């Protein structure tokens, strides 16, 4: 990412939503930013990290989202402005702290960014994190464009300081990763001296009066937000249909009305401040329209609240018809699109709407499958996880007691697919694989006889796995934990983590060693290179067959992409087709059918395997699985 302090105030720049959020925070005088990586939020902290030196701010990748927000709160208590950014799942991790922070209150402006991922494009779940605003009585802002991102973040810091509480700003995948023109404002000069008056106590008791204070802060926020100009109406005075929309959906709604040619019949109330809702504004627009459609992602958040508001004023407002997710006009799940909204509007207004040529999608799919070679959802060529799951699969199969593998969050989550030989039996949230393993590891006394293996990445290990491990140690759970240590947070874009010993801004930190942590807990722990398939298989086999108890294997091998950047892999691979057994009995394309590295292809014409030299990175692992010794690894220098 680029140093955002280099942007010139007043000069139009093309910025990603995430960069606009970061720039807005810099313009607001941010002093500390902390985050845990996760799509689609990661670039916010990355661009702040790259601006940290010039802006003179402190930026960190934290061990998890809760710690990130706690660090930000610490800065706020000393009067500095601070921000924590995360994806929707991170809000869950931080939730307990949020629900207490909102009672204690804050001092320096503090903003929580949640970047949600409708349709779960790069997530394990689909979740609308706006729930946190209602749950914790926090003001909520929803920008629709990068320019609004910048403006709303600045506003959010002022608002936070005005009410003395956390403010939530919610982005979306489409917004975070969209680039659009943004005009940056000036950067501040100077910052307050951080100071915590020792007479000041930030806590939550007495709870009930503090709870009242929190409600009062929200009410005050509502008044300020009503003046913000972030809620805007466009359209006729008494529209045939009022669309109430937020976020990206507001843009989709405008586009849909245009597509249908009903701009003059449809009014669009675009809400940028969605909690608390501006009741006076809503009452006015409800009065002007008989029919209301809600456009938002993903849950019917505004929809439900507006209907509740209407219920209290129904006598004055008269009969209304509400459309949206509850009525079935829009889906309850997944992203919205202009097409979906056009369909809903047409149905409500009695128009016909033809999304595209009916066969268009079909034709597009056919064309793609003709022109684009099939690639399964899989690990990269040379990925150590493929080797790790291979060893786990072989060992559990030889063990023969139908062992189960509890997975976790990271690239290795793909173990549920064929690329990981479907060797992962459960995946939920960060760290939960260890808790599940711990539970399974105690079921023996209840008759559970299958061996239990947990897999966790190195970054996830530090994020939320430790309590599960401590629990297993304490309660003597019987399972094998395999730490897939590729020394990277690869899934989210190679951010450093506690094990890598680098900080967000590229400075040296203190590397925290998984092995030492395990040993300190008194757990038997062994480091294995998963590229050595036989050794890795043997280690897993011995662990599951051996004495019961908690054991840790660290499968340590650098992520193939990181290795690629650091000089690459050592081999140039080739299949000796005179030795290859092809699809005859005796092999039946074992390399491409069973091992499935994308670097291994089958040469249909020759009826023999072939290395795809463009794709293969030269890790050499597949040479170990060929029964005929046909896959040859030569040192790259020698081959060149």
């Amino acid at each position: 990412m680029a140093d955002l302090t280099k942007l010139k105030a007043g000069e139009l720049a093309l910025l990603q939503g995430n960069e606009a959020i970061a720039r807005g925070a810099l313009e607001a005088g941010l002093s500390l930013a902390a985050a845990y990586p996760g799509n689609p939020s990661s670039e916010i902290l990355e661009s702040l990290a790259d601006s940290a030196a010039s802006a003179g701010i402190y930026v960190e990748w934290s061990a998890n989202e809760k710690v990130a927000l706690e660090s930000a709160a610490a800065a706020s208590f000393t009067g500095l402005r601070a921000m924590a950014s995360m994806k929707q799942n991170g809000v869950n991790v931080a939730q307990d702290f949020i629900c207490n922070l909102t009672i204690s209150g804050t001092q320096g402006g503090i903003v929580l960014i949640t970047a949600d991922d409708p349709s779960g494009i790069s997530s394990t779940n689909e979740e609308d994190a706006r729930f946190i605003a209602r749950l914790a009585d926090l003001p909520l802002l929803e920008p629709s464009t990068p320019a609004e991102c910048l403006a709303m973040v600045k506003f959010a810091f002022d608002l936070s300081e005005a009410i003395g509480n956390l403010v939530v700003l919610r982005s979306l995948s489409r917004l975070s990763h969209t680039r659009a023109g943004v005009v940056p404002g000036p950067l501040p000069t100077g910052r307050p001296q951080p100071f915590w008056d020792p007479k000041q106590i930030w806590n939550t008791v007495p709870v009930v009066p503090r709870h009242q204070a929190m409600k009062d802060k929200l009410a005050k926020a509502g008044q300020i937000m009503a003046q913000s100009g972030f809620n805007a109406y466009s359209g006729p005075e008494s529209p045939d249909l009022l669309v109430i929309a937020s976020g990206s959906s507001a843009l989709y709604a405008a586009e849909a009305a245009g597509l249908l040619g009903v701009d003059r019949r449809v009014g669009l109330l675009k809400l940028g401040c969605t909690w608390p809702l501006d009741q006076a504004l809503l009452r006015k627009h409800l009065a002007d329209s008989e029919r209301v459609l809600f456009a938002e992602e993903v849950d019917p958040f505004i929809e439900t609240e507006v209907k509740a508001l209407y219920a209290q004023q129904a006598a004055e407002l008269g009969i209304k018809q509400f459309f949206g997710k509850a009525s079935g006009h829009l889906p309850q799940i997944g992203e919205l699109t202009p097409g979906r909204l056009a369909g809903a509007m047409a149905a409500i207004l009695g128009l016909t709407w033809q999304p595209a040529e009916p066969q268009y999608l079909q034709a597009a799919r056919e064309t793609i499958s003709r022109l684009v070679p099939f690639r399964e959802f899989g690990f990269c060529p040379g990925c150590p996880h493929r080797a790790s799951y291979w060893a786990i699969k072989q060992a559990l199969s030889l063990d023969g007691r139908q062992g189960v593998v509890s997975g976790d969050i990271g690239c290795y989550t793909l173990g549920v697919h064929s690329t990981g030989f479907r060797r992962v039996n459960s995946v939920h949230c960060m760290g939960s694989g260890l808790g599940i393993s711990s539970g399974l590891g105690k079921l023996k006394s209840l008759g559970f006889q299958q061996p239990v293996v947990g897999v966790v990445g190195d970054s996830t290990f530090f994020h939320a796995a430790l309590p599960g491990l401590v629990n297993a140690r304490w309660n003597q759970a019987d399972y094998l934990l395999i730490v897939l240590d590729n020394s990277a947070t690869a899934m989210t874009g190679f951010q450093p983590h506690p094990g890598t010993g680098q900080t967000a801004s590229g400075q040296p930190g203190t590397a925290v060693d998984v092995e030492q942590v395990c040993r300190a807990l008194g757990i038997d722990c062994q480091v294995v290179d998963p590229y050595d398939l036989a050794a890795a298989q043997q280690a897993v086999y011995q662990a599951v067959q051996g004495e019961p108890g908690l054991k840790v294997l660290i499968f340590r091998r650098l992520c193939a992409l990181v290795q690629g950047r650091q000089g690459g892999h050592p081999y140039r691979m080739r299949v000796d087709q005179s030795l290859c057994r092809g699809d005859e009995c005796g092999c039946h394309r074992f390399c491409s059918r069973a091992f499935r590295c994308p670097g291994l292809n089958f040469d249909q014409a020759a009826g023999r395997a072939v290395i795809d030299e463009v794709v293969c990175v030269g890790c050499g692992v597949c040479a170990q699985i060929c029964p005929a010794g046909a896959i040859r690894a030569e040192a790259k220098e020698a081959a060149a």
Partner: protein
Amino acid sequence: MTQSPAAGQPAAASLERLKAQVLEAGLCVACGACVGLCPYVIFHDGQVAAPDVCGLEDGRCIDVCPQAPVPDPSQKRAGLLQALGRPQALPLGPLREVWWARALCPDQQGRVQYGGVVSTLVALALQEGLIGEAVLTQAGPEGAPEGVRARTRQEVLAAAGSIYAAGGALSALNQALAEASDHALGLVGLPCQALAAASLAAHPRHAQGARLKLVIGLFCTLNLSARGLRGVLQAAGVRGPLTRSDFPPPPAGVLEVTTAQGTTAIPLEEVRPVVLKGCALCPDLSAELADISVGAAEGRPGWNTILVRSEQGQRLLDLARAQGLLELTEMPGESRQHLSTAAANKRARAAQAWKERADG
């Protein structure tokens, strides 16, 4: 009789059939014939497993498996004997000569199981160039038996003595057959392994199989699972590698195991749970598909029974006799009768087990 699959039912892939009908049915006897024939079947610590899906429909793995369901198992044996040019003979299989014997090789003392006939014959076959390499069974690093390949007398002696557990030695035969060499190969194997080896050698799509030129069969009534045996030994407090094990003849009723610490007798009731379930299907006491079969000599410790079955077996025995390597004596008629009865009983039990299997 075995039911033929319902008409019109698609033939399932070979490995998937082997998995369902033998491996997952718990009937595998770890002979090793399917192991290493291709990489889809693996073996470790006495255990055979097939972790991946192969999908090939006319594969050899199921054809060579002695435990794969066939409409008529005795028909299959008769066919293989015929291919070898030997008659089917019940209950002991084809016989040219029958002897009691022991080796006259002092360096074998204390290492061989009984009379040391097997080790002597294997070493001789190597020395005389009848075979270039022999596939034997030996304890691996974790104590479980596994296939080994021997070219010297030293290597043969290193594998002497019986291990009462299944060791998948035919995987070593497969490995040797896959290499680009043409020397003749020999095998020491249990009756199930002699059957599987005959199937391998006769397989129309395994040209290399013809390199198997000598099979020395061992008598066998049952075998144990390697991991099961380890558990039994642990439970009996036996520590350290076994230097000898034996099922002494009735009425002993024990498995006798010797380690550096001494000898322990483990009652048969403790051993029975780890007997391979698949052994119940085996009709063959004396390895009828071998060139020459060797077992214990009833009531005569330190001696073996020898059954010579083929020309090749005869040649080897004659060589041994000519070189004064063996002391031979006639097998008493009563013992021969006992052996025949035991062999007939095993056939009858197995026939019943196959019938039950077919009836599901």
